[in-house]
């Protein structure tokens, strides 16, 4: 099987499975317990918290149930029930985990979206116009989950510092963490990540806070996570995430070269195919995600046909694959309907091999040739 849906989730690495198994077998104690075995689990978690905070140059790290909760905590924890007033901006290509909490604020704030260019990058000129002095929150993701565009965070931080220096900048780093070097000290106020996107377990993630960020808890009922997220810590998950990060740093793998091989192969084999989002070889494109359209073949049909060839890819974001509408990201890019209807995302990981890529190219070419003649007339 060729698994090219690593933006949806990744296979847990051996190191992660080993770390979690050990934690379940021997370290199952409640980290809040006062006896030594419990205390020692607590200490392990605190050590990891400090390491992670240090590597991100964050003031504080809160472990959450994943990226979605981290985004919610950053946005709603900052502004829900707040007496502040002003503008909330989020990029038009944000994940629903950011867009929906921002929309929730629209009764008390002036919520607007930052438009993007055809390659999915936030339009800096438009951003300059939208960043009013009363802006309180700006949400821009590090890497877009559907087309792999890397957002110009440095430029946005500069604009923020110039136009609305008090605005909180929240960065959804779910697809960017470990792929890009990230320091909150550059001007990011909060940063969300999710373990299962980098070979860790599902159900765990983190929100890192910069030095001036303060949020209120959304989940009450205990003093865990410095009072910011009640509930017994997901110790297995947190330690699994730690193993995933260590493991990732120990592995060096040129995913970008494989991605470019895939792009070249598919464009050559299927002349009608087009790339959605940034030019794959440019610095605006991340290493592991690329989005193609195969007009006129419907994305879902192509996906199922590839599935029959044992190549797994996806139609946009897995979180919204059950909805009927076109993806918000692709709409924001201003793509024609036929291109949106035929868009498929391919996403790689360090387990992807050259054989996988070649097999995927082959399968795409074959499947496309079979399906091409059947279009709606």
């Amino acid at each position, binding site marked *: 099987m060729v698994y090219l849906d690593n933006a949806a989730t990744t296979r847990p690495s051996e190191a992660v499975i080993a770390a979690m198994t050990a934690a379940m077998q021997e370290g199952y104690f409640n980290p809040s317990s006062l006896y030594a075995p419990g205390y020692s689990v607590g200490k392990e978690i605190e050590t990891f918290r400090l390491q992670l905070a240090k590597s991100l140059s964050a003031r504080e790290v809160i472990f959450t149930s994943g990226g979605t909760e981290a985004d919610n905590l950053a946005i709603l924890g900052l502004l829900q029930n707040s007496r502040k007033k002003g503008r909330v901006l989020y990029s038009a290509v944000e994940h629903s985990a950011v867009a929906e909490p921002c929309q929730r604020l629209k009764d008390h704030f002036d919520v607007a979206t930052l438009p993007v260019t055809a390659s999915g990058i936030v339009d800096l000129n438009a951003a300059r116009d939208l960043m009013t002095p009363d802006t309180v929150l700006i949400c821009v993701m590090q890497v877009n989950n559907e087309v792999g565009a890397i957002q110009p965070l440095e430029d946005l931080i500069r604009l923020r510092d110039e136009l609305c220096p008090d605005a909180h900048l929240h960065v959804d780093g779910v697809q960017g963490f470990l792929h890009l070097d990230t320091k909150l000290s550059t001007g990011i106020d909060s940063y969300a990540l999710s373990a299962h996107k980098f070979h860790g377990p599902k159900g765990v993630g983190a929100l890192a806070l910069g030095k001036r960020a303060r949020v209120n808890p959304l989940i009450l009922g205990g003093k865990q996570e410095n009072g910011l997220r009640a509930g017994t810590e997901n110790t297995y998950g947190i330690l699994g995430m730690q193993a995933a990060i260590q493991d990732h740093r120990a592995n060096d793998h040129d995913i970008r070269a494989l991605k470019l091989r895939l792009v070249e192969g598919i464009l050559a084999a299927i002349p009608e195919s087009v790339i959605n989002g940034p030019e794959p070889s440019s610095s605006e494109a991340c290493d592991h995600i690329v989005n193609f359209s195969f007009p006129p073949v*419907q994305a879902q*049909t192509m*996906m*199922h*046909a590839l599935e029959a060839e044992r190549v797994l890819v996806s139609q946009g974001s897995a979180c919204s694959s059950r909805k009927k509408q076109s993806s918000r990201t692709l709409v924001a890019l201003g793509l024609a309907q036929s291109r949106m209807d035929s868009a498929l995302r391919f996403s790689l990981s360090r387990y992807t091999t050259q054989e996988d890529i070649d097999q995927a190219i082959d399968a795409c070419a074959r499947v496309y040739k079979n399906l091409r003649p059947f279009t*709606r007339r």
Partner: protein
Amino acid sequence: MTSKLLLVKYAEIHLKGQNRPYFQRLLLRNVRQAVKHLNADAQLYDSRIFVTGYADESACIDAITKVFGVHAVCPAVQIDKNDFDAICDLAADLMKDVSGSFKVAARRADKRFFLDSPQICAQVGAHILRNNKQLKVDVHQPDHVLNVEIRDQALLYVKTYPAVGGLPTGTAGRAMLLLSGGIDSPVAGFRIAKRGVQLSAVYYHSFPYTGEPVKEKIISLAKILTAYCGPIRLFVVPFTEIQQAIHEKCPDDFTTLIMRRNMMRIADMLADKNKALALITGESIGQVASQTLEALACTDEVVSRPVFRPLIGMDKLEIIKEAQQIGTYETSCLPYEDCCTVFTPRHPVTHPKLRQAQLAERPLLDDDLLEQMIQRAVEGTEVIDLKP
């Protein structure tokens, strides 16, 4: 000594004459099957079915109200009929927490009982009134009815849960339902099954145009129906090849109609193999292009057995309401996209003549192509047996 039981009433079976025992037997079998997983047992006695031995009463009632042929279910208390004071006390006990108006309805199946029905009503009613000052009697429009039935034992009950009605499944042979993922076809299946017909179902799978989730959805829909009508054998027919051939060879405006004709042909063949006496579809006049009178005539032409269309005169809103009552609506609305839109012409013919349809289909007939494709589809059919 008192004991609890469920009194199961049937309706239309009462109209049956000499073959009434046959209907009763099948109803008893179906009720037993429906409550088996709740460890309950059912007995037929005196034109009533008595269900005993259950632990979870509400689950048991829920299961029985879905059995075709059942008119109503009443949770009852059984007591020795020879101790009339105890009957009165039990009646007062059953009515102790209610207020408003009431009446007592008595049915004296055992004519040797020392009181006649009006006397039972009067005496039991008087005793209830003495014990509950919140109640008053209203024999015309009472809020509550306390029923007393005198049989081998005395049976007392207040609540009646209406059931689905119809005739016992298995009393009317078998029919083949063309099941799509939509709202209509499960309702059509339900309506025919309600008359005692056993269902088989056929679904046309066009991988990769429709994926695994759609197939799972069909299975869930059939599974919901089994709660009413018992086991369903589901046939999943690989239909891609035929659909692609139609798309390639036939005129655009006729493709849907020709597709319908071939679905019917295959259903007819499977019905033959599966001893189904009729086909069932969810069609309703004019709902879509393939459901105009002309189009229906074109699809009927290829079938050798009756095609039942129980929704034919219903509005969409009526069908939706019924789907909600049966419990298939939510599943039908799951948005797994059906990519068959590729094969949907933009302007399908709405008033086809049979002759035109036959002509449009002709390119498929060269070299026995259609026959062979249908053969392959039937041979490649997956059979899934679904149980309640």
